[in-house]
């Protein structure tokens, strides 16, 4: 075989690219899993913001039936996001109404692909994907496999967020179909403050750092304190 490096897209998360040979492999699918409040949506937005900054196209699919204005209201707290990007470099697409009326996996996949063909993004976010699993008829695992394959065929890096349920390490059914698994978690410090962590559990084709790394999440976004545990 001819020797070739993988193309990588910068994550936009300070410190994170150093953990994974410079960025996410392009194209690939990434699962960002974590419990409530661990920062899944923030990380996904920061990833899209980095693309917008670089002149790339991004799509943010929400499954929560959340109108753009609500998302923008929360997102306006973040210094890394520019309002002007929405509707231009970042397309915000609410899948909620579609999912209410369409529970067939094939229809959902077709709908997502229509939007991707229209906007031709290099970065895609589906947040949270686990909601789709609660709504579809048929095999969720087959749907996830199809989705992951189709997303890669579009030549993009796709970040899928997944809710981790109590007692669960990560959404197992999702972890099989993705190329990368990033786990976000929290714990309570002895002083009673809640600390946040980021850990790369799996990344195909990459020598990645292992173990939990402390993260700061503020109005500036995510910053990984590599090596701090």
């Amino acid at each position, binding site marked *: *075989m*001819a*020797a*070739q*490096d993988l*193309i990588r*897209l910068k994550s936009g998360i300070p410190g994170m690219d150093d953990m994974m040979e410079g960025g996410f492999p*392009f194209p690939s699918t990434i699962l960002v899993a974590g419990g409530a409040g661990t920062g899944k949506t923030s990380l996904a937005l920061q990833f899209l913001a980095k693309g917008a900054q*670089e*002149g*790339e*196209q991004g799509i943010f699919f929400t499954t929560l039936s959340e109108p753009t204005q609500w998302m923008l209201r929360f997102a306006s707290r973040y210094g890394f996001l520019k309002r002007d990007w929405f509707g231009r470099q970042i397309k915000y697409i609410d899948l909620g109404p579609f999912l209410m009326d369409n529970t067939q996996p094939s229809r959902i996949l077709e709908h997502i*692909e229509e939007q991707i*063909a*229209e906007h*031709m993004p*290099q970065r895609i976010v589906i947040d949270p994907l686990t909601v789709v699993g609660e709504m579809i008829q048929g095999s969720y695992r087959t749907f996830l496999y199809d989705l992951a394959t*189709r997303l890669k*065929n*579009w*030549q993009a890096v796709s970040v899928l967020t997944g809710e981790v349920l109590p007692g669960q390490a990560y959404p197992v059914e999702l972890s099989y179909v993705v190329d990368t698994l990033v786990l976000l978690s929290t714990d309570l410090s002895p002083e009673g403050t809640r600390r946040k962590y980021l850990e790369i559990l799996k990344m195909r084709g990459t020598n990645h750092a292992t173990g939990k790394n402390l993260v700061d999440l503020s109005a500036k976004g995510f910053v990984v304190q590599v090596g701090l545990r």
Partner: protein
Amino acid sequence: MPNVQAVVSKLRQSLPLIRDARKVAVIAPPTLMNHVSLYLVCAPIHPDAGKVLYLSVDRPNRSLARLFDRHCNGGPQVLFGNPEMDEPRSGEVACITGLFAPKLMVDALSNLSGSPESRASMVVGNLSALGFYNSNDRIKEFLRRIDEKLKEQAITKAVLVTDRTSGYILSLAREFSEAELDLSG
């Protein structure tokens, strides 16, 4: 990496440079292969009323056909195709895929290019992705056979879209071509 607008604008301005060449190498930013391929398939650079054969190295027909259908406004009609399908008519694009078997792609090319009176031009994308699945010799042979098809006049024009991830494949593409368009800088 250059952004979409900059690349498309440079591509548009440079079309006259590659319109008359029979063998062209286009060096594209790896994240914008879809945009560059789309533009090259739909652009008015193809002789014989725009019948185009698209050899897709790393993407299936389905997504490409959807892309071309959606964006080639007023341009060629896209066929959802495979090597067994009928010959495309004038003004149509046929997509051929063959990740692990570049030889088969060239064979399909012969079947699809049709009679000498209705010859087609072709676009290959992304050539450098062949390097993940094939030996250097096999890639060299692939280009030799495309050259053969040009000499036999089975095809009228060959556009190779590649990126800079493989120095070897880039040098092969350059060696092959009469004209080069670099969109990667």
